């Protein structure tokens, strides 16, 4: 009999594969395809070519000198994933998985989306490569992110509003899993974060690690030394793993993930899974989960649709337990303060998700002082959030 130790895809006690039997074959095929692809020079060349000529990589590094004064004078370096095609880091993973989809000979992709960024990126890649595309999106998020819904439709994707449960990202994932169980023979589930069953946390990390690979070189070229800390916002945790990955071996570099604190952890209305959750199984992986005493998932709350998720990638759970990464919580109000400051000081409107990391830098910069260098993954741009921000700040549209 097999034991837990025989299984690939574990991060300490976290990760693994908790899925219906009908999906095991597809996950095995995906794992095999990914492993082969990552050691195939032809695949890697095609990925690099698309990154350079379609996504717009490498993304630049911006020294945010004006914003710095709100961060105790620390040097603030922004890794500009917002400048990627489609406006966020999500495209990195999508292009990689789309190439895997082609390699597996599948013609249909499905995806879940919260803020709509992953849905837009998936619809984009599907248009480019000629796949049929269905995006599942919670009804609540369809309302919050109507601009991205329109973008997906323009790109030729079908957007299915999900009306079950909390009508957000969690339920969109459930619905995508049900579609996949039913149509697995010709369909690839293009999962958008480092959560879910093995091999997704590994695949998504691999395709996003380009962020940290570039950023580490860029910071070294600029400063001649590594940053003191690397910050990123955490929902499922894909942009954070992407920028953390290359720095994990650099013991002197602090890695800090900023979770969505909603109204504050103490109110129970938040999405801070690591800071406020317990170990459990959700969406096929063992990780930290917001759950009650019966093992029922508790609904998360955040102003940011992309962070509004009651689970987190298993590798983050592992990095937390190891003490290699730190996880802090940022409330809606704090994130919106940082959102406004970056917009006014630097002329960069960030995604509300990203604003959580920016607020983290405002706190950390004051702790570390002006000699410190803080690298932030500016994971997405805020165009999609204009309505939410206008409502928050009382701007009439």
């Amino acid at each position, binding site marked *: *009999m*097999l*034991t*837990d130790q*025989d*299984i690939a895809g574990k991060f300490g006690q976290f990760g*693994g*594969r*908790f*899925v*219906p*039997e*009908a999906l*095991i*074959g*597809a996950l095995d095929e995906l794992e095999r395809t990914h492993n082969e692809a990552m050691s195939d020079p032809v695949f890697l060349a095609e990925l690099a070519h698309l990154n350079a000529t379609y996504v717009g990589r490498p993304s630049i590094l911006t020294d945010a000198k004006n914003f710095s004064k709100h961060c105790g004078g620390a040097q603030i370096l922004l890794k500009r994933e917002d400048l990627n095609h489609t406006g966020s880091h999500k495209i990195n993973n999508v292009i990689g998985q789309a190439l895997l989809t082609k390699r597996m000979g599948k013609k249909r992709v499905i995806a879940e989306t919260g803020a709509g960024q992953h849905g837009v990126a998936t619809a984009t890649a599907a248009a480019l490569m000629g796949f049929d595309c269905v995006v599942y999106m919670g009804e609540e998020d369809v309302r919050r992110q109507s601009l991205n819904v329109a973008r997906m439709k323009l790109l030729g994707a079908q957007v299915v509003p999900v009306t*079950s*449960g909390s009508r957000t990202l*969690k*339920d969109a994932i*459930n619905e995508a*899993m*049900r579609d996949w*169980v*039913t*149509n*697995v*023979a010709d369909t690839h589930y293009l999962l958008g974060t480092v959560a879910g069953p093995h091999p997704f946390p590994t695949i998504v990390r691999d395709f996003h690690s380009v962020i940290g690979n570039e950023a580490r070189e860029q910071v070294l070229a600029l400063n001649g030394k590594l940053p003191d800390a690397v910050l990123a916002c955490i929902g499922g945790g894909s942009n954070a793993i992407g920028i953390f990955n290359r720095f994990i071996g650099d013991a002197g570099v602090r890695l800090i993930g900023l979770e969505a604190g909603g109204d504050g952890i103490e109110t129970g209305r938040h999405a801070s899974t690591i800071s406020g959750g317990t170990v*459990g*199984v*959700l*969406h*096929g992986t063992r990780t930290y*989960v917001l*759950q009650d*005493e*019966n*093992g*029922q*998932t508790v609904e998360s709350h955040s102003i940011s649709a992309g962070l509004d998720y009651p689970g987190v990638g298993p590798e983050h759970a592992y990095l937390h337990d190891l003490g290699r990464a730190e996880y802090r919580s940022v409330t809606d109000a704090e994130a919106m303060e940082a959102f406004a400051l970056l917009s006014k000081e630097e002329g960069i409107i960030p995604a509300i998700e990203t604003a959580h990391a920016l607020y983290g830098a405002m706190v950390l910069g004051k702790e570390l002082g002006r000699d410190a260098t803080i690298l932030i993954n500016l994971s997405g741009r805020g165009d999609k959030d204009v309505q939410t921000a206008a409502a928050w700040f009382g701007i009439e549209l």
Partner: protein
Amino acid sequence: MAGQSKLSELFIKCKLENRAALIGYLPAGFPNQSDSIKIIKAMIEGGVDAVEIGFPYSDPVMDGPVIQEAAEVARNNGITMAKTLDIVKEISATGVPTLLMTYWNPIEKYGPEKFAHDFSAEGMEGVITPDLPIEEAGVWLATAKENSIHSIFVVAPSTGDGRLKDVTSNCSGFIYAASSMGVTGTQTNVANTASTLVERVRKISDTPIAVGLGVSNRAQASEVAKFADGVIVGSAFVKAVLQNPSDPATAVRKVAEELSLGVRER
């Protein structure tokens, strides 16, 4: 344990009677605690041979809209593991083999050992775990064995030959063969893919095989009974409850009566 449980005796008895066993599924606490017990008892009166009580979970990825709705109703009406334990006690007291179907996280949260101990003490004979692949089941298999609980896993049409051996050799009580690729309640031509899968399992295992997913009426039950040892029906019972709010017990009894004729028409 095998051979001593009521579940194993049931499959022996059905073989002697040249028929398939009818296994009926309903969620615990649906539509509420007291009615749930009455309705499950009506299902037994109608001719169900074994009962599969589902624990309503917030993220049921293997379930279609009908069972999702039922789970939501039960959760809104306050179902808990403790209340599910009370239902198991009431139902197993009728003498019918009583099983639990639950996603893994509620067991993990309750504590697998405490769960096995508490529920087997109240007469639960087996657990179906639809999202616990055999690779993740090491601890559970040992715990179930220690507490004389049947561990029942699902095999799917997509399960490869090597894997089929691994999964079925760890099943006890029966093997749950998913009739098709899909979630519960989907309407498909059940018989073709199911009979192929059952044939493949027969070649490598002597454990009884029950077919589930998409069986909803007498004709389908009869078709499946021709090649399987058990027929599992869920969504049809849930639908009967949802569509007959004034007298769900009678509606469920009628569905069970029809199906129990089906499993005898081989």
